[in-house]
Every structure is written in C-alpha cells, then in structure tokens.
C-alpha cells in the first residue's frame, strides 16, 4: 500500500528524490535542540484553538446589556465583543477549555521562543552562515509579542483595556511623530472608534499569524538547507560532517511524541488552571481602572521600564520632545532587540572570527559571549521583576518606594557585575576541564607505561 501511494505521488510530482532526502535528513541529537519544536507545536495549538474561537467571537463595539448566566454582570452595559467572550467562557460547551488553552498556548509559545533564543545565543548558533535564520527568529519573537498583546486586548475587558490605554500612551510618546502614529492606528485620540477594534481583530486573526507562518517557514527552510548545527559530542562530529538521527524512522516518533506532549500539557493547563478570568474583571471603560493590573508575562519587562523611569518629560520650550513613557515603553525594548540583531556583527568585530561555524560552542567555551548575554539577561530580568514590586509589597511587605530605588540602581550596577562573574566562571570551568584532561592523559600514559613493562 505504501508503494502505491509513493508511486502515485511521484508520478504526479516527481518528488520522490526530494522525499527520500527528507526522509533521511539528519537531526543532531540534543534535548535543547527541541525547544524550537516546542514553540512550533504551541503555535499549531494556537492556530487550531484560535480558529475555533473565531467561530464564536464577535468583533463589535456595539453596546449591549448583558442578560446571561453570570450573575454579577446582569444588566451591565458592555460591548458585543466582551459579551461574546463571556458567552464563550460560560455558555459555549468546551468554550472555556478552548479559550484557556489558547491563552496558555500563547504564554508558552513565547516562553519556548525565549528559551530557544537563549540556547541559540549561548551556543553561538547564530554565526555565519545562520545570521539570516537568527534575524528571522528575532522578528518572529517581536511579531509574537504584538500578536499576543492584541489577542488578549480584543476581549475588551478592564485589565486589557488598561493595557491598550498604556500602549496608546507609549505610541504617543514617540518623539515628533507619536501623536501622528497614534492617530493613524486609533483613527484619532484614544479610545478610537470601531475601526480600531476591526484593525486589532484582523491583525490578530489573519495578518500577524500569516506573517508568523511565512517567517516560520522561511526560518525552518533555512535551517534545513544548511542542516542543523551540532555539539562536538564525539569524534565523528566536525565542521564538515553532521551526525544525527534521520527523519524516518528515528526522529518521527520523537517529534510526534513532543507534539502530543505539548498539546497535552496545554490542554491540561487549559482545563485545570484558570487564566484571564475576564468575567471577574468586567468590561472596560476609559474612566475605570483596577489596582494590580499587569500585562501578560512577556510584556512585564515593559511595565517595569515604565515604572522605573523617574517622572520627567523632555521639554524644549513649548515642544515636548520626549514624553516620559518613551524610555521604558519603547526605547528599552528597541535597544534590547537592536542589540540582539546586531550581536553577530558585534561579536565578529570583537573576536575577529569571520569564519563559518557548524559546530556549537558550549557556553563556557566562549566567555565573552556568555558574559555579554548574561549581562543583557540580568538587565532585562531586573527590569521585569521591578514591574511587579507593588504585588511584592502586598505579599512580602517590602515597601514599594525603596524597591523602586533599589531596582533603579541594580538595573545598571548588576548587569556589568554579573557579566564579569559569568566571564570568570566560564574561564574557571574551562581551566578545570583543561586540568581534568591533562590528568586523564597522564593517567593513561602511566597505565600504558605500566602495561608495557
């Protein structure tokens, strides 16, 4: 039967040579190489659950009065959009499961990308010839951050509505053109008109997923064309020879197993752990707000940035050159991403290494890269944690204002210090290994000498 299918396809497409190559394409084997796949499979779950949700979500800002099973909002005025998500959560069978799975999948999708990025960075996988793959990956990350933000903002609940207002504040803070850009996006001042919600919706369900899908395809094609990088885990791996498991039969059940595991974990979370209970938040109004409002985790670094910057607008005469939110909300992420984009070039300049690399470094083998990456991570992480210092006060009784001051200092003192420590640790680990190798060689020589006697 297999023969029949293969013959059918080859006769009509001539693709048997390509299929055979694909079937025996080699996957170097290390657990950290699977992180990208975790992201990919989360994306598949996102698309599947997302399509289901579009069959129920109503993208309308028309006001309705709620009459439904959730008692506290009975008789409350809300948009159709919010109402439709309420219905998905309370009335549609399995609706809440799909909705929560979708939201967990988004959180985990971006977490997996970040872990994958860390692996790529700290092993030097972005070096020639893979810079393009790396840049595309970074772009996918940026687009995913926006995609996730739009996804939970189209619900029009109190928490995400506040987030939209802040996004508006950051957009307005772009020097010179802030208000022009905001006027374009929102069709006027916030909260904008119905157009804005249509734009968010179509961006979230079509434009951005299509963009991510295209970028992902190019990303994977580039990986496949150049073959995956590998660690030098044995004598067979080299810059010329890749050692790995073929697609079939070896890799297929593993990758499929990972797909089912990812989907399984996501659905378990979607059913068992509550996420974004929008019925508790209530619908959004520009004149309402709640304490303890936070963006989803992957934007937490931005709220940290926005809270840490001291209160000043950069003003020249009557012109507000740089309103305050720009620094923490726009400049900070732009600097981080710009640095990541430029890093392959910076590293080449700093180390003088312009060669091809198919072999990966262990982090300790490149102290400079590890130190720089660790310092950047420290910076971003500290700002990220600073963003939840008010809840830290509520839970652990550490006063808020001293925390803010501590983070302001730490955010600039800790990264270089921790980078230096990372550098030193790499050096020490390498030295330790050198000693270990010499010791083993000496032992072997001694044994050989004894055996000869």
């Amino acid at each position, binding site marked *: 039967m297999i023969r029949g299918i293969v013959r059918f396809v080859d006769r009509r497409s001539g693709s048997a040579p390509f299929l055979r190559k694909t079937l025996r394409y080699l996957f170097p084997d290390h657990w950290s190489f699977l992180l990208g796949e975790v992201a990919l499979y989360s994306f598949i779950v996102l698309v599947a659950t997302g399509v289901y949700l579009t069959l129920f979500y109503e993208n309308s800002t028309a006001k309705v009065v709620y009459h439904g099973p959730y008692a506290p909002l009975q008789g409350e005025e809300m948009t159709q959009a919010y109402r439709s998500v309420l219905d998905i959560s309370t009335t549609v069978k399995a609706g809440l499961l799909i909705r*929560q799975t979708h939201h967990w999948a988004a959180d985990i999708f971006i977490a997996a990308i970040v872990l994958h990025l860390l692996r790529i960075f700290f092993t030097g996988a972005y070096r020639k010839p893979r810079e393009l793959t790396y840049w595309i990956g970074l772009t996918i990350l940026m687009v995913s951050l926006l995609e996730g933000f739009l996804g939970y903002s189209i619900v029009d609940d109190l928490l995400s509505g506040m987030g939209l207002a802040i996004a*508006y504040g950051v957009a307005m803070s772009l020097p010179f053109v*802030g208000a022009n850009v905001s006027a374009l996006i929102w069709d006027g001042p916030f909260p904008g008109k119905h157009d804005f919600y249509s734009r968010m919706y179509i961006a979230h369900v079509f434009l951005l997923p299509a963009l991510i899908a295209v970028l992902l395809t190019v990303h994977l094609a580039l990986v496949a064309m150049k073959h995956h990088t590998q660690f030098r885990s044995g004598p067979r791996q080299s810059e010329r020879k890749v050692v790995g498991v073929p697609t079939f039969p070896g890799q297929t059940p593993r990758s*499929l197993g990972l797909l089912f*595991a990812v989907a399984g974990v996501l659905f378990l979370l979607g059913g068992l752990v509550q996420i974004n209970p929008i019925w508790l938040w209530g619908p959004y109004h520009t004149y309402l*707000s709640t304490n303890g409002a936070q963006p989803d985790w992957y934007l937490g670094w931005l709220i940290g940035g926005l809270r840490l910057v001291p*209160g000043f*607008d950069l003003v020249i005469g009557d012109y507000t050159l740089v309103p305050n*939110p720009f620094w923490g909300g726009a400049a900070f992420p732009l600097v981080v991403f710009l640095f990541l984009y430029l890093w392959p070039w910076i590293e080449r300049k700093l180390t003088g290494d312009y060669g091809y690399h198919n072999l990966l470094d262990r982090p300790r083998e490149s102290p400079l890269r590890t130190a720089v990456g660790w310092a950047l991570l420290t910076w971003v992480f500290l700002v990220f944690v600073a963003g939840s210092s008010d809840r830290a006060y509520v839970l652990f009784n550490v006063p808020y204002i001293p925390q803010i001051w501590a983070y302001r200092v730490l955010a600039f003192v800790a990264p270089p210090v921790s980078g230096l420590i990372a550098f030193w640790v790499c050096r020490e680990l390498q030295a330790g290994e050198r000693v270990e190798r010499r010791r083993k060689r000496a032992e072997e020589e001694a044994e050989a000498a004894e055996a000869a006697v």
Partner: protein
Amino acid sequence: MGRAKDALISGIVLLLRRRKPRPLGPGERERVVPPAPDNPGWELTAVLLLLAGAACAIAFVVVYVLDRLPAHTQLLGLSLGLSLLFIAAALIVTAHRLIVTEELEDDYPVLEHPEEQELIVQVVEDSGLTRRRLLKLALLTAGGALTAAVLTPIASLGPAVDLVRFYATPWRRGTRLVDEHGKPYKASDIEEDNFYTAFAEGSDKEALPSSLVLVRLPKGSLKLPRELAHYAAEGIVAYSKICTHAGCAISLYRAPLFQPDEPTPALVCPCHYSTFNPADGGTVTFGPAGRKLPMLPLLVAPNGELRAGGNFDQPVGPSWWGVRERKPRT
C-alpha cells in the same frame, strides 16, 4: 500512570541493543535501516498507553455531552490532556524502544558556489541594463514615486496630519458636571475626604477629556498657583481623570483621616503610581508622569449645580509633541 513512569525511565536511560549482523537469507535485500530491537514487553506497553489514550479521548466526548457535570471545564481538560499525554508517552516508548535510533553521518552542504555567483553577475552585466544610467535613474524615480503613491492611502487610517482633535474637549463655560447616570452634581453633593467621578453633560463618557475626578479639600489647604486660583469653587477642585503618563483612569484617592501621622491627600493612578497633589493644581509628587494633571475651572450655578468655568488648563491624556504647544478648545 506507572507505565508512563516506566516509559519515562526508559527514556532517560538510552540503551540501544546492538545486533550482530547476520548473513542475508534467500530473497532478502540489503537493509537500508537496521532491524528494530525486539521488545515485546515495550510493545505491549506502547499498546496499552495508546489504549489508555483512546479511553481518555472517549471520556472527553462523554464529558462533553454530560454538560451538567460540576467542574466541567476541568474534566474536559483532564480527559483531553491525559489522552494526548498517553499518546505522547506511547510515541516516546516507540522512539526509544521499538524502533532503531540510527546515528548517521552526512555532509554539511557547501554553501559557496563561486562559479554560479560569477555566472549570475555576468548574466546581469551582459544584459547591458546595468550600464544604462539614465534608464536606471528613471526606473528608480518611477519606482519611488509609485511606492509613495501606493503608501499614501495609509493616511486615511486616521487624522495623522491635522491633530486638532487631540486638543478638543467637550467642556465650555457652563457645561454641567453629571454623574454616570446623567444626574447633575450639586456643590453640596461633594463632601470632604471622598472623591467623585463626573462627566461633561451630553458627551461620550469614553472620550478621554470627558471624565473628571472631583474632590473637596478642607479650607485653608488649597495652595493653587495664581493662574489657577479661580479654578476652585467652594474648595472643590476638578481634574481630568485620565493620567498624563500613559492614559489609565485615576481611581485612587489618598484621603488621610488624621493628617499629622498620615500621607497628604493625593490622586494616584494604579498603573505606574503617578501621584498628583490636588491642592496645588495637580503637580506630580511621585511616579513617572512628566506633566501635571489638567485642571478644569469650576463654578457653582445659582441653583447649586456644579458647572465648568471654561476649558482645561492643559490638554488631557498622555503627552505628545504638541501637548504644551496649545490650549484645549471646545
């Protein structure tokens, strides 16, 4: 679940049994893939895991139909999630125990093709198009102009050129202050130690300039600057409810019970804790806001109603390039 644990342990200890190559029998061809290890025990495990997965999937359908069950979402998630995880475990058992995991070698592709690169360059150069400078220039001009033309309709997305709407407010002298149900506020409604949300009568409540926060400050505690001194009415002051940092609603009022021991009155935003002093015109006393809170002048009508005495002293909402350039207009 014990079997899943077995599969897990088996996965951690990767043991591949090596088989001695045996001579080919009659009618057999040379193998491409080495023979799979013979593991009837593990095969049974995989089968059982798959059956467990099937059972959970069926349970999902049953739970779906029985929608009156308590914790319905949890049962749905549990059944579907476990089904997927059982199948995942079966696949991992298959990968580690039932199929051979080959470690093969291949070449990394050669990525440099200097002759092909040269040929491409030659083809382009031979065509002669690169030498026609005038043509190139004209093409670039046409391309540039067309790109600009095609991008122009983006401007229809919103009033990006004329930002007059960013200064517009629904307030003018005499506009009534109403609550969210449209009922006008009287000055006597506003008590000390409390804060009230008001809107411009007849306006869209969601519009940022429409919402106000009103507080009455004790006599003698008002310290308004000269240009704002007439903005208060009977000790009542009105500020925009929209924070000048990033646009959240200012829904916190710090109203000390016993002044000597406690922080002073303040309007605070819950997003990044920008703190504004209502007694001196809304200056920022803490937090990242870079601009004071816009203040609305108040007057008390003969019938006791609170009315606007004019427009805000500054535009409302988050700052932008021109926020200090012009005054708000009705």
